[in-house]
């Protein structure tokens, strides 16, 4: 999967130095949705950086993920304003409901979960985004309903 896409990105950066490593990884993630293992090796071959080093760098930053996203990608805001109105409890609730932790994808590939520090919409807290649709001022039962309705739609 995505082999051609990656080559396209690599070609664009072919004559750049190692400072373009992060932009390359970002572009790969934008296109594929995550950083596949063989992509890391290919990038390493091109930039002449050991794959282990690239993996170390990618895991250091919050942005990169290494597994495919679910069909419904849930992004939950856990900024300080959201935390004050109970987003941490919501997170526990979602984790329990979907049986995954933040950064993981459910086995059936339906849901994936990501927690971000702040979405800058603190007056709407707590806030959740599912595939680009915003759900604001959430409650526990509200989250349950959203998850249920998604499950039913499938």
């Amino acid at each position, binding site marked *: 999967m995505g082999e051609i896409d990656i080559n396209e990105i690599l070609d664009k950066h072919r004559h750049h130095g190692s400072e373009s490593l992060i932009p390359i990884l970002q572009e790969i993630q934008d296109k594929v949705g995550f950083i596949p293992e063989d992509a890391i090796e290919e990038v390493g071959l091109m930039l002449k950086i050991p794959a282990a080093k690239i993996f170390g760098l990618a895991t250091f*930053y919050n942005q990169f993920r290494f597994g495919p996203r679910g069909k419904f990608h849930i992004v939950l805001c856990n900024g300080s304003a959201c935390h004050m109105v109970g987003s941490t409890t919501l997170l526990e609730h979602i984790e329990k409901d979907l049986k995954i932790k933040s950064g993981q994808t459910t086995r059936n590939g339906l849901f994936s979960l990501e927690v971000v520090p702040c979405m800058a919409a603190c007056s709407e807290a707590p806030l959740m985004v599912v595939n680009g649709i915003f759900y604001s001022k959430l409650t526990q039962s509200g989250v349950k309903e959203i998850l249920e309705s998604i499950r039913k739609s499938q």
Partner: protein
Amino acid sequence: MALWNEQRPFIKFDKVTRPVIFVSIGSHAIVSGAESILSAITAYVQEQAIDADVEVVGSYGLFSLETLVEVQLPGMARVALKQIKPEDVGVLLDSVLNRFLPDGKAVFQHRSDLHQAWPNVPFFDEHPFFSKQHRVVLDLCGKYNPVSLPQYVANGGFFSFAKAIRSYTFSDICDIIDRSDLRGRAGGGFSAGKKWRMALEVAAESRYVICNADESDPGAFMNRLLLEGSPFRVLEGVALAAYASGANRAFISTRNRYSLAVSRLEEAIATLQEVGLLGENILDSGYNLVIKVKKGPGAYVCGEETALIRSLEGKRGIPSSKPPYPTTAGYKGKPTVVNNLETLANVPLILSKGPDWFRSLGTETSKGTKIFALSGKCAETCVVEVEMGTSLNSLLDLAGGMAGESTLKAIQIGGPSGACIPPSLMALKVDFEELKENDIPMGNGGILVYDEKTCIPDMVKFFMGFIQNESCGKCIPCREGSQRMLEIYQNITRRPVTEEGHNTLERFKGVIQLEGLAEVMKDTSACGLGQTSTYPVLTTLKYFREEYEEHIFDRHCRAGVCKDLRVYQIDLDKCTGCTACVKKCPVNAIAGSPRMPHYIVLDKCIACGVCLDTCMFGAVVTH
């Protein structure tokens, strides 16, 4: 020039020949559905064949008004209408275009001698939110199209830059900024002019300027508003800083999540390159400048300048020890100036209005204005710009005071690496020195408001969890210290497993150690992240010690936030004896016979809350 003078009022919307509809779009407005409103308005204008312009503008910073739509009719003042929904669009435009304002929608109008005012609508400078602010840097945010260069130039934009590269030397600009006493807005408070001069005085074939807009702490969004609302002002500031320090390349590092800000910045840069205000031989001066936007991959530690530089070099964002300072050896070993976005956004204004104008604002030691983002339990989530020397109390007043009936418990200034300030210190003024005397860092400008339903140890636990996650792991005090402190906080906000052995003793010891641990971490951490992340711990221990003691000795959380410390009971009148909770209880702490009221054996209960979730009759109560 004559043509420009003729055109300028039209570009500035001082004169309009046909109605103009402004739609405020920022990332916050998008959450409240601004994009669908924009398309509804454009569709309506087209359908009804209305001869009107539609402009996208940034946000004013008062988020409860969103989505904000402003309308300017020929000869009438520009009026703002709040909380527009897509379904309102037709009715709204119909009535406004016929010079009739719908009830309760108008918030303010702009004062202008050229226009007739709307009756019964307060002016912009009379609106309680805006009247007490001193909007200098945010001046253009919300009023003009962020990506329109003509609109920025019509408001005096790029005059400073053109003047600078035509008639000043590098060092002249450093002098002017030095005279204005502009200090770094990211918290450090280092003089910007001095920093540029330091980079300028190092002999090197290339120098760099990095604009730090990578605001990664939870609850800070002032940089985002500024980037989305007036990217040209930021770019002009970056260009001036680059010129003053003799750099030919500049980076703006922002968060990868700020997609709207990035796209607006990139559009603005492309426009500037097209007209020749960026690129090679700018305005025939022989000066070259390239500005690039870099999307930060998300690491809090990259707020530290050395870490940010390493991240831009394509390495892990790990800070290195100073000296050498970045101004001597920074990006790729070359002299590099790292400035906060807000600092740079002040620069064009200082050059156009003069350093004395800037010195007239603020206090003895801190000049100019400061932008704050307020969130939490205040009535309004907002971004405000106030003169230095404004008291914290008046900042809270700008946000409409407390939300609803709640009372103020404390404010957290500067996010996870800031101090917690009790109401008794709210009279303190926003001033680098005055805050420093009270051992409070200025921070970047994020303010979080706590009310009586906020649990202090829980908030510090939250911040410490964030720090523990974001610590780069290079130095031991920060890596291990944040981990230990998080464990201690988890321990005191949790019910003890048993009362036997040393369990209770360990809990007490934790708190005694907490203070020492924080002191050590503050003194020995390698970078700002570790040093400043102890502020929430130390300040809350100082001002809210009794709340810690309650958690440890009485195992009681007065705010009712710490779930594990809650006591669960069954309301005998409501319980029907359905035994649903009995089956779910993991420790068999619920007793009673079927169809009779049950009760919870408190000694066995682990406060997991399953019974509360299970009960369909609301019989399980907590206190």
